């Protein structure tokens, strides 16, 4: 039964992949990439990797679809028919694929308990988490505590991406908040968006602060937080969204998240521990770990949300009409 679900999901992934290659309409391809991500998220759920599934659903199926749509709106809707023959690329791709499949023959079997990945440090993490960290979600303890350096690196990468987009595209500020001409047409969407906006932000906070106990954490929460503002920008116009959360503030927030993360690390050093050692943050090690994880997850969430909004504003504000020209009407 389990294998049947796996095979069906992998088959659907393959079909979606072929459809993406065959399609010429970039809008359809964007939607298909979103569907691809959704199938991947389902596959992760089947594999019991709910944290990864939540990330994939939020980032892959959610926010990157919006960013891709913004890109398509900036460029062109149809892929150009290539003028050259595609035999050589096909050959390269086939050979690379064959080499990769040959490479997988040496890999451990699916679900093999003796695979190196299950025997290296993972057993220690799983066994020590209840005493050392005291959070039920081992993924959070690994990401935020045992592998705190890696996560700091990831957040810095995201921050760098935001800085890059800001440097290359910039965010064109809008002085006036112009009302779109077709105000009345969007009225249903506006009412529903207003209804959902606070709930989305609330859910983001839930995902952020519940990450110790269930699936979730800073990355997912940041993405969900940003999605709320993107929804607001799509329905109420970019000018209004920029009044709610000014782009200048976004730059500061993106840096503040990384700084909060590093500050927690340095605070650990000041209190006599190592960099990113949370045990010294409170009176007893376990509450120190809780406090440290909470603070760095908050930092991650702030940076991720700010960077995604910087990228979104950077893309969309390049269009003369802004977000209003980008929505369906």
């Amino acid at each position, binding site marked *: 039964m389990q294998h049947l679900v796996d095979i069906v999901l992998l088959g659907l992934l393959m079909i979606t992949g072929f459809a993406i290659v065959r399609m010429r309409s970039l809008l359809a391809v964007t939607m298909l990439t979103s569907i691809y991500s959704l199938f991947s998220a389902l596959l992760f759920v089947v594999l019991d990797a709910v944290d990864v599934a939540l990330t994939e659903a939020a980032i892959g199926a959610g926010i990157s679809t919006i960013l891709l749509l913004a890109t398509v709106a900036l460029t062109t809707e149809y892929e150009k028919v290539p003028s050259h023959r595609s035999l050589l690329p096909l050959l390269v791709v086939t050979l690379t694929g064959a080499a990769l499949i040959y490479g997988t023959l040496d890999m451990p079997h699916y679900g093999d308990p003796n695979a190196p990945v299950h025997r290296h440090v993972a057993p220690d993490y799983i066994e020590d988490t209840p005493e050392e960290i005291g959070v039920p979600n081992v993924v959070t303890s690994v990401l935020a505590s045992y592998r705190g350096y890696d996560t700091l690196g990831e957040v810095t990468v995201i921050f760098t991406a935001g800085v890059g987009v800001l440097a290359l595209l910039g965010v064109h500020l809008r002085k006036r908040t112009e009302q779109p001409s077709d105000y009345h*047409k969007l009225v*249903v*969407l506006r009412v*529903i968006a207003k*209804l*959902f906006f606070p*709930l989305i932000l609330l859910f983001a906070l839930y995902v952020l602060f519940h990450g110790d106990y269930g699936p979730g954490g800073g990355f997912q929460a940041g993405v969900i937080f940003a999605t709320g503002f993107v929804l607001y920008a799509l329905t109420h116009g970019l000018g209004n969204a920029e009044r709610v959360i000014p782009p200048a503030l976004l730059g500061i927030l993106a840096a503040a998240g990384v700084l909060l993360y590093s500050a927690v690390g340095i605070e650990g050093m000041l209190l006599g521990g190592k960099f990113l050692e949370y045990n010294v943050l409170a009176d007893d090690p376990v509450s120190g770990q809780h406090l440290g994880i909470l603070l760095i997850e908050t930092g991650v969430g702030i940076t991720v949300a700010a960077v995604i909004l910087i990228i979104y504003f950077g893309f969309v504000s390049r269009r003369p009409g802004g977000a209003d020209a980008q929505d*369906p*009407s």
Partner: protein
Amino acid sequence: MLDILLDILSWILLLGGALFLLTGAIGVLRFPDFYSRLHAVSVCDTLGAGMVLLGLMLQGGLTLVTVKLMLIFYFMVFSGPTAVHALAEAAQVSGLDPVEDDREDG
């Protein structure tokens, strides 16, 4: 006794929801144009998913899971029709006309 009754009711809802979802899928494949397909999807999706969620709520009993399912239900009741409305609106604005009568084409 009550447990069995709830279980039966929940399975009726689950299977009924699945039936509606299947009907919607068939409608998408068989209906002639964009608007009628959208109609098939929107009606069946909201009802089918709602019934599945209700069935799952009965399975969950009085737990936190049921509260979460209720929130999802609340979300779907609003978001489903709104998404379909946005799609139909977008199609109409971009100039897609409904097919008046497909049977003339054979």
